[in-house]
């Protein structure tokens, strides 16, 4: 008989109007890496919340080492050796790595003074053993995201957890960091830790997992051995139909220039160096220009400069022949710029507004939605929102009057995309439009972006996902430390080549 570290048998958890987990069984073997795959809303989070004692399931039981157990709260889960690395790290920024690791289980002597020396030795030994390189004395705010994640992993190990849950751990990492993480996970499994790896990135699951359980719309679809399966089969299980990985698109037919950026420099909020340095590029009608690069190399600031969220230090931006260098945001928007922002919660939506109020966020002042004396035309707003919801298949609990906060991330993103595309822009600026979304939604959003291009719009896409960069774009500009270090045709360049430019190992002698 197989030895299971954790078994969740026939778990059913219902919420009003929805069965979040419908008879789900998940068996985690000792020392294996078990992937949990599913789209957003498939029930992965609910299942993990059940395992952590945040929810009590109506049916089913949890067994550990063959014994039925009741997990009442997260402390219970911790005491039983279950640890989790959350997608958004739970670290104290102004504490050191070591302080964060020992937090909550601080070693003290009888008088209550901290005894960090022993803890430090233990942490160093662990980081040696598993290849988790950290500097225990560095402040969290000073270290890279990858190192922060290793700190989170060490936190679990320090607590001697044997069951480690990774919730979409690669979403924030660079390609190199992802490779390192994969190696660390393998090391941990080899040392007898059992790992549950929540993801919807098929490449990573194929690369690292031993087995994979798939959920779809709250139902358990099945568990497969990774060595006996393919990416296509996994995605079919996850989405329920065949998914195209390559984006269908015709050859680009670039026409006249829509946006011309000359010698743009944007200051940084983090440091004294400029975030964007003397960048020049053009975007034409009917082409998708993609800014590729590792996170934090000035892409965000480049978009802030283009869209008007930050002022330029120097340089000039022209859109459709108009100088918009100093134009306010509203002017840019009404002259034909649409912006799908990087951070949908910070910029893209007023989360406490209803979906319909969010749908008109860029157009509420137009005569069709506001009458001459400043009253909103509620009926028109509602009808318009219903139209977009229908057209772009935005799903929500109560339709147009759903509060945006209560919607799933994918549908929030769809709402933003619907709003920005329906504005019928000349230039669409899309920043990481598929971040955190599942395969089905990504495919849909890519289709929409290509459709915009084919309709003769100019598209400026900023992406950290190399797959996206290679599949969607017609022209690639690589950004490194605030500068454009290379321009490529996606059909003539390899991912490896791009990686070298992104990492700053190579650059074109004289750009343009």
């Amino acid at each position, binding site marked *: 008989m197989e030895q299971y570290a954790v078994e969740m048998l026939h778990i059913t958890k*219902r*919420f*009003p*109007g929805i*069965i979040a987990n419908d008879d789900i069984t998940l068996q985690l073997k000792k020392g294996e890496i078990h992937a949990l795959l599913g789209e957003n809303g498939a029930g992965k989070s609910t299942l993990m919340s059940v395992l952590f004692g945040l929810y009590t399931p*109506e049916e089913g039981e949890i067994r550990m080492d063959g014994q039925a157990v009741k997990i009442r709260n997260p402390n219970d889960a911790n005491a039983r050796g279950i640890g989790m690395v959350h997608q958004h790290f739970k670290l104290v920024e102004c504490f050191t790595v070591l302080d964060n690791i020992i937090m909550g289980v601080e070693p003290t002597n009888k008088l209550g003074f901290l005894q960090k020396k022993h803890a430090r030795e233990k942490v160093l030994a662990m980081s040696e053993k598993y290849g988790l390189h950290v500097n225990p004395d560095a402040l969290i705010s000073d270290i890279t995201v990858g190192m922060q994640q290793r700190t989170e992993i060490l936190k679990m190990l320090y607590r001697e957890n044997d069951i480690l849950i990774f919730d979409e751990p690669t979403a924030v990492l660079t390609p190199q960091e992802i490779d390192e993480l994969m190696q660390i996970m393998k090391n941990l499994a080899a040392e007898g830790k059992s790992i549950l790896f929540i993801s919807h990135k098929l490449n990573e699951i194929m690369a690292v997992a031993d087995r994979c359980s798939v959920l779809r719309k709250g139902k358990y679809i099945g568990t497969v051995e990774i060595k006996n399966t393919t990416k296509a089969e996994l995605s079919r299980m996850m989405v329920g139909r065949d998914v195209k990985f390559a984006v269908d698109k015709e050859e680009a037919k670039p026409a006249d220039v829509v946006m011309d950026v000359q010698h743009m420099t944007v200051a940084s909020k983090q440091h004294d160096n400029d975030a964007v340095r003397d960048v020049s590029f053009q975007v034409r009608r009917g082409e998708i220009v993609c800014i590729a690069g590792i996170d934090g190399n000035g892409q965000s600031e480049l978009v802030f400069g283009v*869209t008007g*969220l930050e002022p330029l230090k120097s340089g000039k931006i022209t859109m459709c022949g108009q100088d918009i260098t100093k134009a*306010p*945001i*509203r*002017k*840019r*928007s*009404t002259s034909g710029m649409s*912006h799908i*922002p990087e951070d949908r919660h*910070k*910029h*893209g*939506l*007023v*989360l*406490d*507004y209803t979906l319909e*109020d969010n749908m008109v*966020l*860029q157009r*509420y*002042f137009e005569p069709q939605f*506001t009458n001459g004396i*400043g*009253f*909103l035309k*509620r009926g028109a707003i509602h009808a318009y929102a219903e139209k977009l919801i229908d057209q772009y298949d935005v799903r929500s609990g109560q339709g147009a009057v759903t509060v945006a906060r209560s919607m799933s991330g994918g549908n929030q993103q769809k709402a933003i995309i619907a709003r920005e595309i329906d504005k019928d822009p000349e230039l669409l600026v899309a920043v990481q439009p598929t971040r955190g979304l599942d395969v089905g939604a990504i495919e849909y959003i890519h289709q929409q972006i290509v459709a915009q291009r084919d309709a003769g719009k100019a598209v400026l896409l900023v992406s950290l996902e190399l797959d996206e960069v290679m599949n969607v774009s017609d022209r690639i500009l690589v950004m490194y430390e605030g500068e454009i270090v290379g321009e490529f045709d996606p059909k003539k360049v390899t991912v490896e080549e791009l990686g070298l430019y992104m990492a700053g190992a190579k650059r074109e002698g004289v750009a343009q």
Partner: protein
Amino acid sequence: MKKKHSSILRFEGVQTLLASLLCILGGLLIGFIVLLIIEPSGAWEAITSVLESYFRYPSAKLQLKYLGQTLTRTAPLLMCSLSVLFAYKVGMFNIGAAGQYVAGACAALYVGIAFHMPWWVCMLAAILAGALLGAVSGMLKTFCNVNVVISGIMLNWIALYVTNMVLSTEGVKNPMSPYTMQLRGVNPGGLIPQMGLNTLFGNEKSVTIAIPLAIIMAIVVWVILNKTKFGYELKATGYNYHAAKYSGMKENQNIIMTMMIAGALAGMGAALLYLTGIEEWETTISSVPAMGFNGIAVAFLGGLSPIGSILAAYFIQHITMGGGNVDLSVYCAQISSLISSLIIFLCAFVAFFKLAIKNHLRKRDEAAAAAALPKKGGDNA
């Protein structure tokens, strides 16, 4: 039957009302316990006299008269609560309403007494003075990133002492007392007109059109916040400053504008009190009048809705007046303030009780969902 009961509970307004009532009940209960501790024999008598307020008076005429007085003082309180809730909807806590109210009092009385202006000019001056002080808070917030609470508290004291100074000038202050001259004597045209409303309230002369004006302002605030483009922009700025900026709204201008309007509302509140002639300004006063602070409590007790504020303002004024009826031979004079302040204190729990009601509903839904499904399965079998 039970089903109907639960569906009523689901309305936001009903939840707010229920939560507010729970707060009031809690305040009364704690007040009653305090009374019991001090002197058990008179406790029941005292608490009922607070609640009965003017209904204790023997004749219908007297009751009407005191109802009129209560309403007269409700109007400025309502204005202060509107000031607080307006700023709150745009994400700012206008504790400076108290100072804006003081500035309004200063402007109204000075213009009325020194320049013998008609009442509406005095009121306009009060509105402008309040708006000006509000704008200072708003600008400090947008240009220097000073928290509105901090600047509000500071400005409250600045407004108080400037007002004491301005109203102490010759010709404005009564030379025989620390109070300002009586508006009724110096400039009767500075009094808000009664338009016959006083005849409805046993000829109580303080009853003026201030009362309907305040109610109209509550409705105007509700309309602005919920029906206009302006309200849409302001609330968007309050909920998410960054999204407002992203969508091209003038986010900083919106914040200053909001604080100006909030200040104007509080300033107008002061005009509604001091231009009825029932009170003069005491130029030696060394504490900021409580009206503005009570506006905060009223705004929360009213569930942050302009319409709810009307009811809440009346209730707070009702028990404040009722506090005057407590038998002072049994309890010390402060006891009435204690009971009303306990209720005001408990007002802060409206949101808490609302959450409790929502959680209760959610739990019941979950239980119902759990119960319904197996039954359905049984039907199929």
